């Protein structure tokens, strides 16, 4: 048999995008082995901005924090003058990780392998025994090891969020976000952030399944019954969907005030669960309208892998870090604001019961990526149906829509030239 033909043939089938544009997503997109590396290069190391950390995570001069650009390790630093830099966590010499810790203090960075040294901008400042010892050995005078990286990232700080990119071409962060998204980022980051802590989840699915989940305003009140039962978020509540010009970013928001609708009960949704009853300890849901606009829920995502969350007074940034074809790390960092009093902090901490790996309204999301990854094992040549709210990617008032999911694929295809 002619293998070669077979292989080619198979691929061609697999790789063709369905004709129906953004309303059909082919399942091979979540399981094709070669695609993973290509996404790393074309998306994460391509013309996109990645959220690296909160400015508050670099509290003082001479501090650093490690982060990721896709699965590429990154160091973010604040130098002695307070300026923030980011560069590859890879030594120019032989490629060792430069920083072995999540965070710390440092005036310079010393690679453990051969003690080459770097300043906090990522510039190579010293090569051990570069001139040899007693005139023997060492490096040729014309050797320029500094030309071998670590590659430095373009860094921008927007509203206390540190973003980085490898791209020279991509627009600055604010135009990248666009006016609407930028405004809503500023809305949440209204004051200097005060760290409350973090943790991460290892999700059993491809990273795109999580981003779809985040942009999927349709699922929230159907999958997360706790949400619905306590009217934290119902599609019938006043709110909307904002999608940036090219589909890249999104916001899903809703007002706390409930129109007291009975749509879920009428539709007999499992998630309405009329007879659930009340909480014995309702203080769990106590909250204040700290943004003064009545919006109780604002989920905002920035392509490719950043989420900014406001659920009542529970604020968090989430970083989506691909760890292989079907493993994704979801790193959460929660924060309040400088000046929060004890009571306000306590309020945020109590509400944090709603989020994270044990979150009463978020625990399902981690598992959902796995349900799909496993569900499609035999269906690589099939496709999903993403037609709620039609086939467009425009902002709209209704959240009974998958417009933001289509937006994700619009921008994915643009970057992947797929």
């Amino acid at each position, binding site marked *: 048999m002619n293998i070669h033909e077979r292989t080619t043939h198979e691929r061609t089938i697999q790789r063709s995008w369905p004709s129906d544009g953004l309303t059909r997503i082919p399942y091979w997109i979540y399981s094709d082995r070669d695609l993973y590396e290509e996404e790393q290069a074309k998306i994460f190391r391509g013309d996109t901005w990645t959220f690296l950390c909160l400015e508050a995570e670099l509290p003082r001069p001479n501090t650093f924090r490690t982060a990721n650009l896709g699965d590429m390790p990154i160091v973010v630093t604040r130098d002695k003058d307070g300026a923030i830099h980011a560069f590859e966590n890879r030594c120019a010499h032989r490629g060792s990780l430069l920083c072995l810790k*999540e965070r710390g203090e440092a005036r310079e960075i010393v690679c453990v392998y051969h003690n080459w040294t770097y300043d906090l901008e990522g510039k190579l400042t010293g090569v051990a025994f570069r001139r040899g010892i007693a005139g023997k050995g060492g490096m040729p005078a014309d050797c320029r090891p500094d030309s071998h990286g670590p590659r430095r990232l373009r860094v921008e700080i927007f509203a206390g969020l540190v973003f980085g990119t490898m791209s020279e071409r991509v627009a600055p962060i604010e135009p990248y976000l666009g006016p609407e998204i930028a405004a809503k980022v500023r809305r949440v980051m209204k004051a200097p952030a005060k*760290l*409350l*802590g*973090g*943790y*991460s*989840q*290892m*999700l*059993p699915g491809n990273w795109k399944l999580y981003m779809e989940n985040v942009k999927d305003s349709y699922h929230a009140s159907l*999958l997360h*019954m*706790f949400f619905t*039962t306590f009217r934290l978020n119902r599609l019938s509540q006043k709110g909307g969907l904002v999608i940036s010009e090219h589909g890249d970013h999104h916001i899903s928001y809703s007002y706390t005030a409930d129109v007291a609708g009975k749509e879920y009960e009428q539709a007999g949704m499992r998630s309405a*669960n009329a007879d*659930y009853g009340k*909480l*014995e*300890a309702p203080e*769990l849901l106590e909250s204040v309208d700290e943004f003064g606009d009545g919006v109780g829920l604002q989920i905002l995502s920035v392509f490719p892998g950043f989420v900014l969350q406001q659920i009542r007074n529970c604020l968090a940034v989430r970083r989506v870090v691909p760890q292989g074809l079907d493993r994704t*790390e979801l790193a959460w960092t*929660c924060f309040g604001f400088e000046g929060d009093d004890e009571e306000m*902090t306590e309020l945020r*901490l*109590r509400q*944090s*019961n709603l989020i*994270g*790996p*044990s979150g*009463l309204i978020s*625990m*399902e999301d*981690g*598992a959902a990526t*796995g349900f799909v990854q496993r569900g499609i094992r035999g269906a690589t040549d099939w496709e999903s149906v993403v037609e709620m709210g039609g086939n467009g990617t425009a902002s709209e008032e209704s959240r009974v829509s998958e417009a933001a999911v289509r937006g994700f694929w619009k921008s994915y295809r643009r970057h992947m030239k797929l």
Partner: protein
Amino acid sequence: MDIERRLAVLDLNARYAEAIDEGRLEEWPDFFTDDGRYRITTAENVEQGLPLPIVYATSRAMLRDRVKALREANIYEAQRYRHVLGPARIELGADGMLHARTGFMVARIMHTGETALFATGTYRDRIVEAGDAPRFAERTVILDSRQIDTLLAIPL
């Protein structure tokens, strides 16, 4: 400290672990006092002096609310835990309560049969002996890892 009291604490740990491992979540709140506190956090947060919890309850009522949510609202695949405990370190606290520190390993077994070492850490407890059996006035679960696989539904 006399052996009786030590054994009473070991017995409390044993019954607590068994109730969870056998899925009797309804019994879980009763291991706490009415205003009992339960908190899961990570060693990383503790070391940084950051207060963020993974689970945080300040009363037995809140624990009951969580059990109810796990039973009626939340979606997660059938799974069970298996606790094994390290040796307990028990002291009499200034507050008259017993202070205990116990290391643990918890395996998670999915309905599919998949078994994994799911969590390790320490219990930091304040225990009141009043009444029939000792109860937790406070149980803080400090996870050694900053990372949870998929989700943490069943309490630790």
